[in-house]
């Protein structure tokens, strides 16, 4: 039971707003000590796992190219495009993006869009511009801009999560096939992925309704 101390530390540390990097270090130390390791052994185990998980941070490799495109005016171009296309409302934009993200993820194309490459430089500025057009202001208020951006980021995650499991060769499907096989149950990836379809449809419906509600909110008071 003592090894759960680390989990509690993470929950408590995040809840009271300590710096998450220090919370993670403290939790790793507590968990390792509870499992009978010495502090140096914990540090080595953490370092080994850190090194093995470098691919997680390799995703930041995309920052320079996105930066150049932003410097060249990509965000402004995205805003301008929406300003000219009056028929593109916030709701239509976000519904199209949700559908695009779910459909491409279902085909295994999870890396062709994302927070850094799509949301920040293109979709979030477009969504802000669409909100500005439909509420009749030249630029949305800062608080509303924050809400719009957070909603756009959420839509990307939801589209990804509830699309990717329809694809046969995605990590989670392979994990399930392997796990079931170890337990003497043979299933084909296709048998698993078809069961992701009902939830994918529900996700589009539920988040779609929220998009429509977000788009119909009254113009925020200045």
């Amino acid at each position, binding site marked *: 039971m003592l*090894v*759960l101390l*680390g*989990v509690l530390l*993470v*929950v408590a540390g*995040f809840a009271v707003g300590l*710096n*998450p990097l*220090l919370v*993670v270090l403290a939790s790793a130390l507590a968990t390792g000590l509870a499992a009978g390791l010495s502090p140096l052994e914990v*540090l*080595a*185990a953490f*370092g*080994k*796992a*850190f*090194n093995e*998980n470098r691919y*997680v941070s*390799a995703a*930041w*490799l*995309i920052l*320079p190219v*996105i*930066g*150049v*495109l932003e*410097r*060249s*005016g990509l965000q*402004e*171009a*995205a805003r*301008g495009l929406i300003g000219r296309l009056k028929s593109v409302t916030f709701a239509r934009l976000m519904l199209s993006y949700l559908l695009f993200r779910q459909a491409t993820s279902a085909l295994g*194309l999870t890396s*062709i869009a994302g927070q850094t490459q799509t949301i*920040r*430089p*293109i979709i*979030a500025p477009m969504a802000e511009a669409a909100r500005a057009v439909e509420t009749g202001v030249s630029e949305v208020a800062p608080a509303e801009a*924050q809400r719009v*951006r*957070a*909603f756009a980021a*959420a839509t990307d*995650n*939801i589209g990804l999560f509830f699309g990717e499991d329809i694809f046969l060769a995605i990590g989670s499907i392979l994990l*399930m096939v392997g*796990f079931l096989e170890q*337990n003497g149950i043979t*299933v084909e990836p296709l048998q*698993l992925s078809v069961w*992701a379809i*009902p*939830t994918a449809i*529900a996700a589009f419906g*539920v988040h779609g309704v929220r998009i429509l509600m977000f788009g119909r909110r009254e113009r925020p008071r200045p």
Partner: protein
Amino acid sequence: MIGLTQVYALAGFVFAGFAVLSLRDSANPRRVRNALFWGLFALSFLAGDRLGDLGNGILVLVMALAAALGLGRSGAGAADAEARADSARAYGLRLFLPALLIPLIVLAGSLGVSHGGPALAALVDPKQATLVSLGVATLVVAVLSVRLFRQPVLSPLTEGLRLADTVGWMALLPQMLAALGAVFALAGVGGVVGETVTRVFPMDTRLAGVVVYCLGMAGFTILMGNAFAAFPVMTAGVALPVLVGRFGGDPAAICAIGMLSGFCGTLLTPLAANFNLAPAALLDLDDRFAVIKAQVPTALVLLAVNTVLMNVLAFPAHP
């Protein structure tokens, strides 16, 4: 063969560039700390395999302490708003082409390596085709964009650093959480949680079992930050013995919907930092948890939907 090593080397050189630029940025009062942070990031990517486990541990400890003390933001890089607007007017829709080229190269690269015959498969490590393609795409499109839009030669690094400083210490968190997950696994945290859940919650009826499994997948994912960590524990502890064994459910449907219940948990947890916290930093949101808050209603409704779907779809009509 081109694989992870080359991609890591490219990332290492980019991060080393961030470190040098940070150090030379006299407008940033914390420039030494920023340079240390990105310099150690570069060292990890260029030489991590030669540092040894303890060496890597010390490296991440120093990085985390430097970052927790507070990093500054680089003043250089950002073109002023007027220049960006002029550029947007001048190039218009052409600005979207490089942005579209990145996914196309990633797609062509991943498909090409897996279906392009033995020659390509010998050149690129098939297991890392997506990451290698992403590396190639960023390199090609960065060069192309600099030429096409007449940007300074160094602008990929200065602009990359501007974005990296927007993300700040959060850039390190996803990788550290992944490492924490490994320490949890080493200490057997998953097994203890699984045992506790099955001991505490009675599962006398099918519905109770379904509810415990779906909520357990979500709850355990919230605690561990990853549905993959929750899946083996909850499935071995609840789904296989109770839902499949006692109530005759279809293992494929139960596992698939159970995993998706875990994904609802991923939408709710700050431990899934790369999905939930890093975007908030990247989008310059004041509230670190703003993205999670925007996801809460959808995640909770979908969790309920998953529970109902499993109860309705995963069991034979007449048990």
